[in-house]
């Protein structure tokens, strides 16, 4: 009699097809569990990547999803969190190579999925900042709302995503795939998930801010960019509740003016 852990490891190997059950009757019964597992995981990916599925068709999607599940099985029982690596997987999935923008659309859908399911969080109480003096303020670094993603992709994934989900063939036909990279901010507000397109300078500031770059660095950088409006951009993020907490980061000697 194998120990329970050994038995569970061996059953996993049989379920995933890495080992063969001892007879055909057992194999068929095991297949019932295998079918439930694949069905559940493929369905979880369908729910998170509806535009990718529309772009490639249900049958192709199922094949890609099964290949992904083999390469990247879930590590958590919360399947809303499953699929973080799907966009990267699709970019290297040879049968999908004909649709160059598929990975970008998948990356956007993952950000949308994160925005849908991220924990609730309230924006930073600005009164906490009002009591700080100027040198302290410049040492602040912020934590962004968990629903926010900042995405820079090669193709206009936002336009493709909207056109595909709205089944708007005219909009799809008018998309210029060669328009150059797009800079996106994805978030959740009271009305639902929002996908905004930003200009490159504003996106770079927002991405660095949300990644926890301290203010003295952001303002130094802004001073060197003629089209930067650092103070206004920061005020907008704060007023919309996109920042939920802060830390104090000591600057290197001489960095403070």
């Amino acid at each position, binding site marked *: 009699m194998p120990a*329970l*852990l050994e038995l569970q490891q061996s059953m996993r190997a049989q379920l995933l097809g890495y080992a063969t059950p001892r007879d055909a*009757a*057992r194999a068929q019964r095991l297949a*019932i569990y295998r079918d439930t597992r694949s069905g559940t995981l493929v369905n979880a990916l369908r729910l998170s990547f509806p535009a990718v599925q529309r772009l490639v068709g249900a049958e192709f999607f199922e094949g890609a999803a099964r290949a992904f599940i083999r390469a990247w099985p879930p590590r*958590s*029982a919360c399947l*809303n969190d499953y699929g973080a690596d799907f966009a990267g997987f699709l970019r290297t999935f040879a049968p999908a190579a004909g649709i160059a923008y598929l990975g970008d659309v998948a990356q956007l859908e993952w950000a949308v999925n994160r925005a849908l399911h991220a924990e609730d969080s309230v924006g930073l109480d600005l009164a906490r900042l009002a009591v700080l003096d100027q040198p302290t303020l410049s040492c602040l670094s912020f934590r962004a709302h968990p629903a926010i993603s900042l995405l820079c992709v090669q193709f206009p994934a936002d336009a493709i995503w909207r056109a595909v989900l709205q089944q708007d063939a005219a909009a799809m036909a008018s998309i210029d795939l060669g328009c150059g990279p797009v800079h996106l901010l994805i978030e959740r507000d009271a009305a639902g998930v929002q996908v905004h397109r930003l200009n490159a300078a504003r996106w770079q500031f927002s991405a660095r801010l949300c990644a926890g770059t301290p203010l003295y660095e952001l303002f130094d950088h802004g001073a060197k960019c003629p089209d930067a409006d650092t103070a206004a951009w920061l005020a907008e993020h704060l007023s919309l509740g996109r920042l939920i907490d802060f830390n104090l980061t000591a600057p290197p000697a001489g960095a403070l003016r």
Partner: protein
Amino acid sequence: MPGASHNAIDARPIPVAAGIGLRFPHHDQVLRQQPPVAWFEVHAENYLGGGSVRRVLERVRRDYPLSLHGVGLSLGSAEGLDRAHLGRIAELVRRIEPGLTSEHLSWSVVDGEYLADLLPLPMTEEALDVVCRNVEQTQDALQRRILVENPATYLQFQYCSIPEWEFIAALAQRTGCGILCDVNNIHVSACNHGWDPQRYLDALPPAAVGEIHLAGHALRTLDDGSVVCIDNHGARVAAEVWALYEAALRRFGSKPTLIEWDTDIPAFELLLDEAATATALLRRAAGARHACAA
């Protein structure tokens, strides 16, 4: 208590009546129409995040008694529980204050990989020790008693030393957990393994049974010609299962009873109709008991 939520609503007990498993396709209708349902149960794993889905759960919780049914804790994992997952379930329980909290006698995690199904356990002393340890850890983390549901299984292991019904009774006795008696699962496993379903019911201690589940199943013929009964939650409750439900009510007394439907989810009205059948049988059982007591 530190961290106690000041806006928590008082825990609302689950009534001894027929409830319905609430699934996403019925969210809007339930919020809009407030149908006359005695209570709802949801799968905990679908509500672990925030946003609009959590708002729906909070509104349902405000308007109805609510039970949380976990599908991913993997109480049978030899390697122990995923602490991060248990922590998220505990947080949800603290926020929602469900009337009942339940999980399954099965496993779905090994070597940190989630296998996305409720897999069967060998009924051995070692497995019983493992499940007892995991149930105790869960009850400590959630600070409440949980109910553990008997599984529907399609295969058995050669070296099982304990009948499943005795395993469950021992689990309840050792950990103080309650039993979620899934009558359809008893029927499914009894068909697949040649068990006597009445013997199964007779082995479960009535006082430990906190809830009953009812659902539909399907038959599938395998290549070798054998027929397997599959717990697909995709049909009306079968006649044999209604009969077994009446036997369960005679044995356990009236218990909160849930209608579950997860595959090819039908119009909500069909679930109301199934719940009405359960309600009628609950009333008849209560009447029979009163008649006996008189």
